[in-house]
């Protein structure tokens, strides 16, 4: 394609008024005014996606709220079957992963490539540790016959046999979708890691790291609510 040449006489004038357009960063896409606007648009877009995620998880949180209101006794009785300390450990693991993710974004901002790579690897390790603990928990639930609708046994509180299954259904749906988001997150981190190793990020352009960080922290926030709602319901009554 032939480029339109700007006459020398006009060039200086244009450079004064449109210097940002003529001498823009190679990372700036042509439909944005400047890098700042490009960055803000990306983060805003990510937040819009996260709002749809709030709606997605919100439906399940609303269902939880309704059924807990309807069957408080049954929900409290499930606490003695929940691995509270595994849940608490996983909460701490996820918070650590959020810290390393935040530090990964920070090293990308500063152009510290090696640190960025290490922080991404650490975040992945924490994420995988979380999923490993989750797998142990699910296996325990299977062994204890606590999978709703499939050989469900609730001998200690037989009167709650029906209602407790609703809580376990919500438990598997909510933690399952959360775990799915974690798996997707580990995939995103792998992509970021490859990009970082190929030296694709710079202090001028690290948008994928920033918006992936938003996603990772959002998944952390979902767990921050799942932990007290699923694991700590009736502990004070059972010890």
């Amino acid at each position, binding site marked *: 394609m032939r480029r339109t040449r700007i006459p020398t006489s006009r060039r200086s004038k244009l450079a004064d008024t449109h210097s940002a357009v003529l001498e823009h960063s190679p990372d700036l896409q042509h439909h944005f005014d400047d890098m700042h606007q490009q960055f803000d648009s990306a983060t805003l877009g990510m*937040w819009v996606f996260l709002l749809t995620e709030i709606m997605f998880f919100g439906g399940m949180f609303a269902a939880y709220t309704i059924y807990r209101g309807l069957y408080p006794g049954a929900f409290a009785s499930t606490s003695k079957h929940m691995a509270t300390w595994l849940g608490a450990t996983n909460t701490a693991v996820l918070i650590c992963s*959020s*810290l390393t993710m935040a530090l990964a974004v920070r090293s990308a901002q500063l152009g510290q490539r090696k640190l960025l790579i290490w922080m991404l690897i650490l975040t992945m390790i924490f994420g995988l540790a979380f999923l490993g603990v989750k797998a142990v928990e699910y296996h325990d639930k299977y062994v204890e016959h606590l999978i709703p609708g499939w050989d469900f046994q609730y001998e200690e509180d037989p009167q709650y046999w029906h209602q407790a299954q609703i809580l376990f259904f919500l438990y598997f749906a909510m933690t399952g979708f959360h775990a799915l988001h974690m798996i997707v997150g580990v995939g995103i981190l792998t992509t970021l890691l490859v990009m970082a190793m190929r030296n694709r990020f710079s202090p001028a352009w690290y948008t994928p790291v920033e918006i992936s960080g938003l996603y990772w922290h959002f998944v952390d926030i979902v767990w921050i609510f799942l932990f007290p709602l699923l694991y700590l319901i009736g502990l004070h009554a059972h010890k």
Partner: protein
Amino acid sequence: MTHEVIPVRVYVAIWAILVFFTFTTAAVAFIDMGPFNIVVALTIAVIKMLLVIIWFMHVKQADNLTRLFVVAGFFWMAILIFVTLSDYHTREWLPLPHMW
């Protein structure tokens, strides 16, 4: 260029507070406070969420448009819970019609 760089010690401080609240919420759950157990648990969860959103998710440095969107998300969530519960909680307030 884009965001101001937050010092490492701020991130670590936020992390320490989050870990502290995690163990607080787990420990407090063993104390019987009647209906206030859930209130305390959710209050701690909301504080933790705000710390993550404001510092880790950089809403502190975000422009007002982004902030408006974030608030809109919680506004929507409030409508979802409030309106749904206002149905379930008020069903017995009015007498049910008898068989005709």
